[in-house]
């Protein structure tokens, strides 16, 4: 049994009404405990909808989703599911509810019924993990875009769920901030065994995952390890995606008759391949 099992999942907004919109059109996938999965796909392909289904905010219209064996369609499992899957939503403002940063981070664990002393500890730790500890007494609405994003991530880290789904967590971050978030995510995954599902439009982040799942128009298009998926540049481009510049450079060199003999995932790999080619 996988940690998350999705079987022939369909989801429709405003089902039965005139403006019904089928967002997920029969989709199946398995996510194992401890995996780091990147979920990619064009705007509107259903990634955020799926994320909200993973943590039980929405329930499938048909098909089934099981989280750690719990059927998410069953209302009595709802609280349990939320304890297992934490979600950092696409827009941090939706998530920042309290007047002070640290209260905001405490909100999730409070809802899970964690004792106050432990909450204190978790909040400090989570804020430090995202480098926002010195802002703990600030008002969230006064923070810059990137700072808000990091507070939202801290809020979910503090819940210490088995699985964390991050919906475009680095969209508003500077390059170092993005690296820091990626390091934080990888550390949570590696050292704490937390299952990570990262939704992103940044291909240079996706290449750092263990497995990439590409969605297209409410369905799964392809999946595999990053190197295999990103070797298929044509397929990705056809479905509105891309590859990192380093990968693109090697790909276009190959098209011009210069085969570097590999698919680089980052700048260092690309430089190494060119160096070897020259020798």
């Amino acid at each position, binding site marked *: 049994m996988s940690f998350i099992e999705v079987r022939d999942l369909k989801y429709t*907004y405003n089902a039965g009404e005139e*403006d019904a*919109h089928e967002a997920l059109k029969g989709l199946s996938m398995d996510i194992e405990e401890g995996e780091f999965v990147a979920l990619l796909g064009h705007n509107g392909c259903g990634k955020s909808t799926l994320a909200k289904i993973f943590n039980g905010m929405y329930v499938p219209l048909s098909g089934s989703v099981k989280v750690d064996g719990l059927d998410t369609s069953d209302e009595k499992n709802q609280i349990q599911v939320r304890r297992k899957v934490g979600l950092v939503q696409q827009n941090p*403002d939706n998530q920042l509810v309290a007047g002070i940063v640290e209260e905001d981070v405490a909100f999730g664990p409070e809802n899970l019924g964690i004792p106050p002393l432990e909450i204190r500890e978790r909040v400090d730790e989570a804020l430090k993990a995202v480098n926002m500890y010195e802002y703990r007494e600030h008002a969230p609405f*006064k923070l810059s*875009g990137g700072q808000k994003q990091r507070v939202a991530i801290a809020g979910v880290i503090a819940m210490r769920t088995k699985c964390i789904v991050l919906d*475009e967590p680095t969209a508003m*971050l500077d*390059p170092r901030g993005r690296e820091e978030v990626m390091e934080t995510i990888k550390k949570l995954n590696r050292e704490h065994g937390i299952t990570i599902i990262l939704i992103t439009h940044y291909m240079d982040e996706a290449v750092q995952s263990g497995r990439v799942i590409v969605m297209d128009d409410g369905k799964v298009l392809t999946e595999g390890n990053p190197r295999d998926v990103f070797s298929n540049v044509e397929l990705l481009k056809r479905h509105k995606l891309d590859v990192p*510049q380093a990968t693109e450079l090697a790909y276009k060199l190959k098209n011009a008759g210069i085969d570097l003999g590999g698919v680089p995932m980052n700048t260092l790999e690309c430089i190494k391949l060119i160096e070897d080619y020259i020798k």
Partner: protein
Amino acid sequence: MTESNVIETKNLSFTYGIGTPFEKHAVKDVSLTIKQGEFLGIIGHTGSGKSTFIQMLNGLIKPTSGTILLNGKDIWAEPKKIRNVRFKVGMVFQYPEYQLFEETVIKDICFGPMNQGLSEADALKRAKEAAFFVGLPENLLEKSPFELSGGEKRRAAIAGVIAMDPDVLILDEPTAGLDPMGRDLLLTQIYNYHKERKNTVLLVSHSMEDIGRVADRVLVMNKGEKAMLESTRDVFSKGYELRDMGLKIPQVTHIMQKLKLMGLPVDEGTLRVEDALRQLIPLLKKGEQK
């Protein structure tokens, strides 16, 4: 002040929460000129003051000290006319999805031009062009803006500002949240629009690759101050300094700099993949023949 400067700032500063314990000097003493018709990239770590700075340029917030000249005139000389400044200097906010509030997407896009005094028919025409321009499919125009996906909302908000056809277009992270193709398309379209209209564009972005592709010059903000304002090439030749400020250089520039250090005769100021290919293909082909 020469004719070719569209915006000039003199010792511009902004402090949030003056007199409170959270007083924050967000922008400190920034003096610079922006040339008519240039494409200026703005980069800087989160919280470096980029959004605060550009919001002063269109009169949305008033500087704590310093002045802003728009075509040579102090924009705060007549505070009652500040609205006109906002028509001339159009701004797409960071998280622009919060600017959407009308019943339908198309009404939302029409809001700006209608406010400028255009007739409903003219506003609708402009709105449709703008929607097409940002790649928003026709079938979404009658939907409620709240029913759009993240990337679709972003496009709708950008269309709303472009429909006003401003002289200076300021975009705060417009491509964040767009899928790669949407990002590419929007960037190309903004670039083409700029070339065609010869208007001034200010683009705030955390994507060094995007800035490298389109900007003539780059303003680097660091802790509220102007750290650099130079040609894109010169800015991205300072990788170490940028790194210290939480920034990076485009991947392709990084690769070319390293190849140059290895002794290959390439341009270390290369900013686009196409330009790298133009140099590398003949070089590596030659290597093959040896």
